[in-house]
């Protein structure tokens, strides 16, 4: 049995700090923590955004067919600046042009859509004929690891390479589709991932949205 004396002293301990004290205490701690976070953020944000930019341009370059082995960050920026130009298509769409020695090597279009848990993004690089996929890459934030998250892995996205988006360069009918795993039945369809049906539907929607933009931009070579 606990004696009433010890209970009382326990109670006293608990009441040692008044509500006002608790309020002030939490306010001070929160301010200190906030200041620390703000300071660290200010200190490092430049480096973080540089990393993000490097990641973006290196994925653009990779799908455009540039071998990135043995290339350092500085050269990466330089190649990007000299060979890639951003081109506005309509009010809210754009593409990158990759030009090497005055010859157009590839057009790259951004991909934006929704997966199962959150947004998914990516880029699709087209051959200069705007018919055949040269390369594609996906990024996501919160798809299920091992299932939906597989879209970011080479095993999945390499299936797109070499596929036609329409039957020929004049046709407007989209033939490239991403199918639920096991239901692929034409050479320009991509087999999905088992257990990731919702993410795959998102990818299909996202890719098709961009393919429509690609078809519309065919006149603007």
């Amino acid at each position, binding site marked *: 049995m606990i004696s009433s004396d010890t209970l009382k002293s326990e109670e006293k301990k608990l009441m040692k*700090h008044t509500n006002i004290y608790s309020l002030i*205490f939490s306010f001070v*701690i929160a301010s200190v923590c906030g200041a620390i976070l703000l300071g660290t953020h200010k200190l490092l944000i430049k480096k973080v955004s540089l990393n*993000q930019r490097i990641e973006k341009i290196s994925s653009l370059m990779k799908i455009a067919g540039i071998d990135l082995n043995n290339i350092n960050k500085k050269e990466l920026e330089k190649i990007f600046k000299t060979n890639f130009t951003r081109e506005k298509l309509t009010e809210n769409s754009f593409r990158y042009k990759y030009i090497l020695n005055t010859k157009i090597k590839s057009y790259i279009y951004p991909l934006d859509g929704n997966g199962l848990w959150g947004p998914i993004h990516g880029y699709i690089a087209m051959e200069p004929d705007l018919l055949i996929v040269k390369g594609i890459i996906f990024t996501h934030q919160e798809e299920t690891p091992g299932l939906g998250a597989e879209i970011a892995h080479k095993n999945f996205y390499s299936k797109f390479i070499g596929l036609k988006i329409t039957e020929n360069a004049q046709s407007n009918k989209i033939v490239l589709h991403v199918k639920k795993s096991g239901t692929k039945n034409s050479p320009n369809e991509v087999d999905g991932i088992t257990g990731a049906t919702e993410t795959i539907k998102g990818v299909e929607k996202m890719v098709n949205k961009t393919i429509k933009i690609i078809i519309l931009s065919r006149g603007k070579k």
Partner: protein
Amino acid sequence: MNKYLGILKKGIYHENPIFHQMLGVCSALAVTTRVKNALVMTIAVILVSAGTNGIVSLMKNSIPKKIRLIIEVLIIATLVIVFDLVLKAYYYPMSKQLGPYVGLIITNCIILGRAEAFALQNKFLPSVVDGVANGIGYGFILLFVSIIRELLGSGTIYGLQALPSGFKPAQAVLLAPGAFIIMGVLIWIVRAWQLKGDK
């Protein structure tokens, strides 16, 4: 000195957070597909756990008892976000690979658990040692599991080819069920062994 050794031993072996307290299992399953990931995660947990324990023990007399949990979580969150930012700035690819799991250290029960169970009752230095010990205890298991998973799942250890190229990696080991099985078998073996030692 002996006191500190005792705390270390407890955290790493006798009261290992994963084997005995069953804390932090979620992240232990998630980041152990690669030894490198496990290593970075371990460093993060050691730093955050030692830091939180130290700070909490410094203000154990001034912290209002009624709101101590919120305050503790606030401290943990601050340390974790700082670590996450540093990782993003200086080791970006790793930060990409670990994804949300660095942020999830905030909810890793090892850290809050040790702050509550140890730092609130002990002085600064022993608390820091306890934080480090539990971090190491956690990391130990992480390394062990990740070595098994990377070896069987990819045929490499720390990114280096460890098995002959003819070896066909078992992808199942890299998925969550594989991690559960490996962790379960490991806990079984270690517990049985420790029980035997106790008798």
